[in-house]
């Protein structure tokens, strides 16, 4: 497999042409035939305007899925590498890169030309297009060093701020829902498109990496409006504008001091926050608004009339969520998703909450102190419990022809 070009091998093309009765054409106008066949068998989107808008480029200076306007659905997948062979790890990253390139363009994997083999593509997203699919990859600190072992010769290239998030007061972290060697964030406007992508990445990883945990998320908000969390409050009002490049460089993108593969990259901080919906729903509106420090309907901070009015911390309850977050003077870029995960059979309560995701260039200086302060004093803690946690280095974006994280390995 390693040496195969993406797409069709010569033998596959030959088989195809024979099967399609086009064989004779190969000698004279081989290329034309090849083109025809590829078009017939791979679900390449036609270039209508509608479809082009749903394609978010996989390649670029930064990885997609960070300052991309937030899609409706999320799958967050954490993998542990099962091999100690650096070449196999690189091979997997190459394979994932190829698959991601294809899926983000709304294309499926080629049909298999031997009916006795399992189909390459799992098939459930055929014809659904790209749906603004993004696939974002990141590396956990255990990839660089696991239990004192440097499995892939990477420990000297560990980025500056990739240290585990310290244990916080009130933490109820489940290790089986935390960390992992590699994180993959898959987002799309169609849940099946997102699922298809993550499923095929998991399938391709068998033998090299094993899925540690997989969480789904959902979210909605009218275009240009801040989406709401499951407590009914607008979440992410203070986020920087996705058009403000200068601000992004200050808050999100890594630069000086970081290894080359992280310049233009960032860090993903993750918390799986269970929210006690049944308790929250029976608390008064006043209690709810005091907890956040904002009005529920408008999202306006206390003492102001509109969502985006500047926050006056003196007007907010001291232990409110917004007052505490503001008091750190730090900024992060949030991109979380709601989730629901069946019920707790003991209580009958819904297991739901927030897949908290934030991006920042220096999590130890911004995210960690903010989390520490909130974990200690936040009024919201009465209604929430942190059950999963992770910090990951998100390498810079790649050019076509590179594989994800290539600069880390070369």
């Amino acid at each position: 497999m390693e040496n195969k070009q993406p797409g069709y091998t010569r033998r596959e093309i030959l088989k195809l042409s024979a099967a399609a009765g086009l064989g004779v054409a190969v000698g004279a106008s081989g290329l034309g035939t090849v083109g025809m066949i590829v078009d017939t068998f791979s679900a390449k989107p036609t270039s209508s305007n509608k479809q082009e808008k749903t394609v978010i480029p996989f390649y670029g200076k930064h990885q997609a899925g960070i300052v991309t306007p937030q899609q409706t659905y999320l799958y967050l997948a954490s993998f542990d590498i099962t091999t100690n062979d650096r070449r196999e790890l690189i091979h997997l990253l190459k394979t994932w890169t190829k698959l991601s390139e294809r899926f983000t363009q709304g294309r499926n994997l080629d049909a298999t030309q031997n009916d006795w083999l399992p189909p390459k593509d799992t098939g459930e997203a055929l014809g659904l297009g790209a749906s603004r699919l993004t696939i974002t990859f990141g590396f956990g600190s255990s990839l660089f060093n696991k239990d004192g072992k440097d499995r892939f010769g990477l420990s000297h290239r560990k980025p500056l701020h990739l240290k585990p998030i310290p244990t916080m007061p009130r933490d109820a972290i489940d290790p089986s829902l935390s960390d992992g060697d590699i994180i993959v964030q898959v987002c799309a406007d169609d849940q099946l498109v997102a699922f298809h992508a993550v499923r095929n990445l998991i399938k391709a990883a068998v033998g090299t990496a094993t899925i540690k945990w997989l969480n789904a998320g959902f979210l909605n908000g009218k275009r240009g409006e801040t989406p709401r969390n499951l407590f009914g409050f607008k979440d992410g009002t203070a986020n920087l504008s996705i058009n403000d490049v200068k601000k992004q460089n200050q808050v999100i993108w890594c630069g000086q001091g970081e290894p080359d593969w992280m310049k233009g990259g960032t860090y993903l901080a993750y918390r799986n926050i269970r929210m006690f919906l049944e308790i929250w729903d029976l608390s008064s509106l006043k209690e709810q608004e005091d907890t956040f420090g904002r009005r529920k309907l408008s999202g306006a901070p206390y003492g102001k009339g509109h969502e985006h009015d500047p926050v006056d911390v003196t007007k907010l309850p001291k232990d409110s969520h917004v007052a505490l977050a503001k008091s750190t003077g730090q900024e992060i870029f949030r991109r979380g998703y709601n989730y629901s995960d069946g019920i707790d059979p003991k209580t009958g309560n819904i297991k739901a909450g927030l897949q908290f995701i934030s991006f920042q260039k220096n999590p130890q200086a911004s995210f960690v102190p903010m989390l520490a302060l909130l974990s200690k004093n936040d009024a919201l803690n009465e209604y929430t419990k942190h059950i999963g946690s992770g910090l990951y280095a998100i390498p810079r974006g790649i050019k076509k022809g590179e594989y994800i994280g290539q600069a880390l390995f070369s």
Partner: protein
Amino acid sequence: MLNLKKLCCLLAIMALLIVTGCNGKNDVNDHAESKTTKHTDQISEIKSNTEQMLSTVKELKAAVGDQNVDQVKQLGKTLNDQWLAFENDVRDAFPLLYTKVEKYEQPIFAQASVDAPDLSVVKTQIAGLTDALNELKSAKLTKQNTTKLLDQAVKDYKDYVKTQADKLIEATTAFTDAVKAGNIDLAKQKYVDARVYYERIEPIAESFGDLDPKIDARINDVDDPSQWSGFHRLEKALWVDHSLKGMNPVADQLFEDVKALNEKIANLELKPQQIVAGSMELLNEAAISKITGEEEHYSHIDLVDLAANVEGSEAVYHAIIPALEDKNKSLAQKLDEQFLLMKQTLQKYKKNDQYVNYTTLNKDEIRELSNQLATLSKLMSQTAEIF
């Protein structure tokens, strides 16, 4: 699949491409020459390694004659080391003979690895191994065609199935006799033995429709529990009820059903596609009901079944090696490594030549087995490239 007409068309195009593609004719020749030299070296190496093995086999034979268990164990291991040192070259050059040597060498090594080896098994294998090694010593390079390789694969696998079915009858007889004698402890032991032979060839039994449900149904599989028969009915009696009361008819029926299976297997017709599909079914079974501890719900000997499923699948792999070598060498190599890894992992759970109870495994240990099975299945599913 391509039909014959299309295949001819394809061959014609390929020939065309080969002709038009040979611009660097000299390069091609140089390459071919160096390849031939390499082959000649490799083959003389194979021959000298084979000689070495033959002399170890001779010593082994003497040790068996002397009933010298320690020496048999030691020589069995030496023999395996010698084989491992050059088996890849043999698989590469003489795939058919490779499977033949493996067929006799593996059981010898298996006996050498247990605390109390069965010398009679070693003795019968020595004869076969000597023949195979002599053949290997004088083998010449020839190119086999795919159809012939596949026919041979089917034949080899059928031999395997027949051997297992015969052993199944033997082991089932011992089991049902113990049940009928009311000897619970002995019956428990014999149950484990019989399960191995059934689980190795289960997909074959499944292909005969009603026999598998009669022999291997679990209580959830039957509509009417009073009609429940077969191994698992007796398993429940032994491990849960601790009583064999009323089990005589069940034991008789099981014996009859296993006998019927054996008779059907004698006239079995198989296609190469079926045997590869069967090997996948075995791994699927292992990954669905054994790894979860559902299959042997009362006795918890799921690891016995799981290992037997893997062995049954490996038998298919061995049978198709020659064809696979021809189509995708690196896949054969990867499968070889993965089967070895799987067996090494399973070996960790053997105490006194017996697999430990499934319930003693922790979550991480089960997950490790599950991951390795998944990798094995993924590789095995690609063997259909030979068709």
